[in-house]
């Protein structure tokens, strides 16, 4: 039930302003943490601003889409990634950067982690080795980064991992249309347009503002109008009979906004612009989370040693009475 889900309670926001505020907050928090010693001009030139961060996330959302589409299981190249995995990954990615700055965690690392986690949640089975086969560059390092980030990601998602996707609502709507609105000729021909819409809507903020049912309705009405038909009669007369008319306005408004967002979805930024921001990001990012930095290495080697205290400590022959601490000492 969407109504009792964590998606509804924690991850569906009132309006675009609230979402924008969260992003500004994440950006400001990072700058305050790492740039408190600089003047304002220095901060501006050193750190990414909210807009640049937004552009980065957006361009990586496109990358995520391409990555999922190109994804092949190395053991059987006929196996493609399901659209549900992509949708879930997009949700995770978007949610993560609502509360985190791009400068803190590089999107290219979070991207693959999101997809890997989504594969698990959506029961699309791939091992980590098969997964990194699809990643360019050093496979071993990629696997390490993904596994290191995975727990961090789930924590940032507040462990709310179930995503209510618009696919089943679309099926429900189509069943209802076929049953109660037979005026519409052959609703099956809508499918390619619906799929296209549902792919695009993941690139917008609509998925953290509106419910899957609203997105489904927007997708179907868009597909219908693309075919030169319209569903107005169905929505006003059949979906909202009589006394429920008051809700109609809310839904229509939501659908209109979703459509607008999808229509205005920005194309990914140009390569030169992207390279420019990337190089700036490379300078100002949090080095503790950069796998290429010495700080990161140092941190991780420490943790590795802590992980294996039993194997490394010599076996104590005597039942070391002195070594035992009283329970209150802990």
């Amino acid at each position: 039930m969407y109504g009792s889900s964590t998606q509804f309670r924690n991850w569906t926001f009132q309006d675009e302003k609230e979402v924008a505020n969260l992003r500004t907050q994440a950006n400001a928090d990072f700058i305050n943490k790492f740039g408190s010693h600089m003047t304002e001009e220095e901060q501006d030139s050193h750190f990414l601003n909210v807009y640049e961060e937004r552009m980065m996330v957006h361009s990586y959302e496109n990358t995520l889409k391409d990555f999922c589409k190109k994804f092949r299981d190395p053991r059987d190249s006929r196996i493609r990634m399901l659209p549900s995995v992509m949708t879930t990954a997009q949700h995770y990615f978007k949610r993560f950067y609502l509360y985190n700055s791009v400068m803190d965690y590089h999107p290219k690392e979070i991207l693959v982690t999101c997809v890997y986690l989504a594969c698990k949640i959506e029961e699309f089975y791939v091992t980590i080795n098969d997964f990194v086969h699809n990643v360019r560059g050093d496979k071993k390092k990629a696997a390490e980064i993904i596994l290191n980030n995975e727990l961090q990601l789930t924590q940032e998602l507040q462990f709310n991992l179930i995503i209510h996707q618009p696919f089943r609502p679309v099926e429900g709507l189509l069943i209802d249309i076929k049953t109660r609105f037979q005026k519409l000729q052959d609703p099956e021909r809508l499918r390619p347009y619906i799929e296209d819409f549902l792919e695009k809507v993941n690139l917008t903020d609509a998925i953290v503002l509106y419910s899957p049912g609203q997105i489904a309705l927007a997708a179907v009405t868009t597909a219908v109008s693309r075919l030169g038909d319209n569903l107005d009669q169905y929505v006003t007369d059949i979906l909202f009979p009589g006394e429920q008319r008051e809700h109609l306005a809310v839904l229509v408004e939501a659908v209109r906004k979703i459509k607008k967002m999808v229509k205005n979805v920005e194309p990914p930024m140009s390569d030169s612009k992207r390279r420019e921001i990337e190089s700036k990001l490379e300078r100002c990012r949090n080095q503790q989370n950069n796998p290429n930095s010495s700080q990161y290495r140092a941190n991780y080697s420490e943790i590795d040693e802590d992980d294996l205290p039993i194997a490394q400590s010599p076996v104590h022959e005597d039942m070391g009475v002195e070594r035992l601490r009283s329970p209150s000492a802990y």
Partner: protein
Amino acid sequence: MTDCYYDSSYEMQCPACKGTKYRNPQMKLMVNVCGHPLCDACVRMYFLKESAQCPECGMVLKRSKFRVQVFEDPFVEKEIDIRRKVMRVYNKFEEDFETMSEYNDYLEEVEQIVYNLTNDINRLETEKKIEAYERLHRDDIKKNFGKKSKADEEIQRQLDIENLMSEDRKKTSQEEEERDKILREKSKTSLIQELMASEGDAKTILEDHAKRLEEEKKQEHIVREREQLAKAQAALKAKEFTSGVKIGFSAMINAPVNTVKEEKYVYQPPDLPFTLPVPSWDELESGGYLNHVRRASPQANAGGYTEHYACLRALQDFMGSHNLPSNSVTT
């Protein structure tokens, strides 16, 4: 196959003379208050006089305090010793405290002391603490010395009841046996007499006799059942009415159970957002919704699945996820 001959107790070794159970099956390990084991031969040798030093830690020990090590780990033995000593001083019961949390604090303190002493943490301080406590609570300690807690008493009482009951059972079964014996004897003699006296066919007499025996048995069975019923009723009555010490506490037979009073759970339906009307299960068929979903295979039907589930779920997912305000719910 060597496992068959292996006994882990062979590993037991006296730390002083290095003798093992394997070489000397009669060997016994003994422990004293310090918790260091010694074999009985070593004890005899070291403790020619009444007291001597422990060869491990140098503590002065008395020979009479040595006892056979029961647990494999001498550490446990040491703890038991210390616990016994501490408990002699800290001998309060739950009834002596006003609240549960006070009692818990007290228990924790005791455990802390025992732990510290066994592991040699702050030994001096802890011993001082015990002494101070002893001085402060001398009267209480004396009063509680040798007193049994309520729970102990209860257990003792239950044991008494069980003993009584088992004796009772033994008595009745003995009586029954005796009665059986007499009966058998009687029937045997009657049969012989009949065979001697009557002139009829021996076979029919035997058959008659067998029949009669069976009837008698049946009757006896009925009588016995009646007796048992009466007994049970008597017991029930006794439980209900008498206030005598031995029978009247049947209501208290169970050891005291702390009942925690808590609010009962009351179901509250979740406050769900408004949903558009969804057809009911039966309407799926009559309304024609099912014509637009894939029919379930016979195998799936056999497993209890019907296409209704998928259809209804899809419809509910659409109708129920519009994020509409719930305050104006109609119906």
